[in-house]
């Protein structure tokens, strides 16, 4: 019997779990996938939005602006890559400058600081590779970028260090309300708990609808991206948005905290919530619309493309509340963009809701900080020398593109909530995320996983059951 079960190990579930782990609750986080951060939190733009987009007075606006303020300190505490790079919303049409002004006013009333409208010259001074058709831009100095997997994994690890249990490969298929508790039915068994927190992303409507008579609906809205090689590092340093116009919402161009450039996303409503397919049309749209912002889109430098699915609700508002007809069941549903930026605030907001209604004592020994895996490529010569002396595995480079060593991979497997899959290694260490996209390191990563987990390489998967690499021995089918 748990006090609290959080359904969903994305950035939202992990942030909530971490905040609640400050208190003496017995907490479980459940996820249907084999690792944390396998849902929307792994495929998004990684922008810590300033907060001028959301509607005045909405919960979304409140969470966004607060999340943006909390993010730097949180990332410092959890040793997560965050850059306060500032953002620009470009306007290409003189008649639309008033829309920039409107955006600025909305930002000001949402509490966003430092907003400024820049002239063409000022914009091009900041970003020389932008299309010279730009006429003005809204500059938001508080905009930032964060690594979404690092953040999610750090929150999860820290929650785990503070006593939260995580259980993977456990899809919730039904929830029964009992007198003073809930019985959560999963594919691998039943779990009893007093409180349920629904942080199931695109599936948050299904989870809600298991217990609540007033149904909700999440519309999966797909967004496709292209990722460019680090050679394009200097293309832009700010996050570049386009003012929404008759062609739709526009495509952003942004650096990532690791020095790549991403272009995207599109926005297309789909039926299948698990549809992570990229399409020819989508990639075409990304590249052609990115061409509005940039003088030249270096298409030869694309190293991968990917898709994320937003948990959109028609109201376009976060639903964060205790269900009306199900006491102890808290929805954190429809967390679409700016969900990542809002995640620190949502964690606190939900923890506050829960502790107010179901109070308990605070832990005395809460660990607020967490250290990242030592990252060889970020260290100085002396620091590298020291690290290799302590553990020679840090001298064996496994991923050449990102310079990830065997030491980092072994550490990723053995720390709290360690990696068990190739994608898990990738998100924790960046092995396989570079320009050859794991062509070089895949065999080695598979071998290290097998060795450290005491398995045969045929048992190693990309993302859990069914996603195997090895199909047998040579010649056994002849």
């Amino acid at each position, binding site marked *: 019997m748990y006090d609290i079960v959080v359904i969903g190990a994305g950035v939202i579930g992990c942030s909530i779990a971490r905040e609640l782990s400050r208190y003496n609750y017995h907490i479980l986080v459940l996820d249907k996938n084999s690792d944390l951060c396998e849902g929307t939190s792994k495929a998004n733009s990684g922008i810590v939005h300033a907060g001028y987009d959301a509607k005045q007075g909405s919960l979304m606006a409140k969470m966004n602006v607060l999340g943006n303020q909390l993010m730097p300190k949180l990332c410092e505490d959890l040793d997560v890559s965050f850059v306060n790079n500032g953002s620009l919303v470009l306007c290409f049409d003189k008649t639309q400058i008033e829309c920039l002004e409107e955006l600025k006013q909305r930002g000001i009333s949402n509490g966003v600081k430092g907003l400024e409208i820049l002239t063409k010259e000022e914009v091009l001074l900041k970003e020389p590779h932008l299309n010279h058709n730009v006429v003005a831009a809204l500059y938001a100095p508080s905009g930032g970028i964060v690594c979404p997997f690092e953040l999610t994994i750090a929150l999860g690890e820290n929650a785990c260090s503070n006593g939260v249990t995580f259980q993977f490969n456990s899809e919730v298929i039904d929830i029964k309300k009992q007198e003073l508790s809930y019985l959560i039915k999963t594919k691998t068994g039943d779990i009893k708990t007093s409180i349920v927190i629904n942080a199931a992303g695109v599936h948050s409507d299904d989870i809600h609808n298991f217990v609540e008579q007033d149904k909700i609906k999440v519309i999966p809205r797909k967004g496709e991206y*292209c*990722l460019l090689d680090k050679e394009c590092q200097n293309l832009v340093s700010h996050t570049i948005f386009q003012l929404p116009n008759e062609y739709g919402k526009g495509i952003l161009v942004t650096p990532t905290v690791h020095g790549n450039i991403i272009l995207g996303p599109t926005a297309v409503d789909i039926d299948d919530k*698990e549809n*992570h*397919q*990229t*399409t*020819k049309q*989508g*990639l075409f749209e990304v590249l052609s619309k990115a061409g509005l912002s940039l003088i030249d889109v270096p298409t*030869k430098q*694309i*190293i*991968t*493309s*990917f898709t994320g699915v937003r948990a959109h609700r028609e109201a376009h508002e976060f639903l964060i509340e205790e269900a009306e007809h199900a006491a102890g069941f808290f929805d954190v549903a429809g967390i679409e963009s700016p969900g990542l930026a809002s995640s620190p605030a949502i964690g606190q907001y939900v923890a506050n809701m829960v502790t107010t209604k179901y109070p308990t004592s605070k832990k005395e020994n809460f660990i607020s900080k967490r250290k990242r895996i030592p990252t060889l490529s970020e260290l100085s*010569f002396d620091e*590298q*020398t020291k690290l*290799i*002396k302590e553990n*020679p*595995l840090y*001298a*064996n*480079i496994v991923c*050449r*593109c990102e*310079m990830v060593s065997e030491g980092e991979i072994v550490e990723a497997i053995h720390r709290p909530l360690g990696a068990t899959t190739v994608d898990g290694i990738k998100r924790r260490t960046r092995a396989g995320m570079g*320009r*050859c*996209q*794991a*062509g*070089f390191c*895949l*065999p080695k990563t598979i071998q290290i996983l097998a060795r450290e987990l005491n398995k045969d*390489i*045929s048992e190693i*998967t*990309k*993302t*859990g*059951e*069914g*996603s*195997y*690499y*090895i*199909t*047998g*021995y*040579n*010649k*056994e*089918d*002849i």
Partner: protein
Amino acid sequence: MVKELVVIGGGPAGLAAALSARENGIEDILIIERDVQLGGILNQCIHNGFGLHTFKEELTGPEYAQRYIDLIHENNIDYVLNTIVTHISEDKVITLMSAKDGLYHISAKSIILAMGCRERPRGALNIPGKRPAGIYSAGTAQRLVNIEGRMIGKKVVILGSGDIGLIMARRMVLEGADVQLVAEIMPFSGGLTRNIVQCLDDYGIPLKLSHTVVDIQGDKRVESVTIAMVDKSLQPIPGTEKTYECDTLLLSCGLIPENELSHQLGISMNQVTTGAFVNESLETNVEGIFACGNVLHVHDLVDYVSEESKQAGQSASLYLKGLQNKEGKDIRIVTTDGVRYSVPSTLNVSRMQERQIIRFRVGRVYRDAYVSVYVDDTRIKHLRKRILTPGEMEQVLLRSDELHPFENIDQITIKIEEV
């Protein structure tokens, strides 16, 4: 530590370069290799067909490499294994890293870059679809199958008809898989004709030219891929899609020279080859730094790698002995009309050897065309070729006595002339 010559990479290029430097009188040589053994990519190329030019016999990749490794041992040339070069500074201080010796520096008087290449990923091709397990670059598959002895799929589709893709098509069949087809987006194959015959035709594997993958299905592991025909601008033609059930997609879509170190050094790079620009001595724009093998431009035959690298070793030894001729000027080699690039890209007549090989690739298939060489406006060579294809590296030989009659040469041009 100071070394006369440091060779980075212990593949066929590095080995041949080191040997040739030794033959030319350089004693103090060190080869640095990050893998557990010398031989480079040849160690996983267990098929035969290597060495026809160099040794006049058909060897497997590991056998070919072993011939050179034996010579390295006979000549007592030093090498370190399990050691990666992480940085080279402009004044030729090399940073090495190994589990055994930690992190240390070696200062070199001359450096030969022979780091080989890695494979191009799916993203570079912008293939739409899902992203399940079961999509491998052909070289990765080659490693798992040939070195680990483990199968990576039962029903296979291959995209790209580069040599590695062709070789892997046959390998997968030999190891018990069902290879459905090889699709190639271009109207010609990127591989050697002999590989198409020996690896596809002999096994009844269809090669579909002007076809590409337009979709990949499967949430966990590949379940099927959809192939469509493409038009002249390489765009899929609606209505031509055909879906193949399979659990594996191999990509053989080209190689990327491993030039991270060259970039750090500020070496000027050729956009076409993504390797360094070099002169007739295979020297880069940074004095005393030479390049050869796949890091310079992608080769299809290892024999040519060895030949080219031999020259790099010779040039480095002349440089080290102070015998490099400083006279004359670097003449630009211009490549046009179907010739995509050349190695070298400049030539100095007073420095060139008696016989200088110019290697290049063409951009499309030509039949019964001429490879012509012009010195300024004078055509000095007009060589008839029955067939020229992008998949096979071409070469022309320039003799120094052919160039001596000309004074003040501005440029040398290599082009394809059709009848």
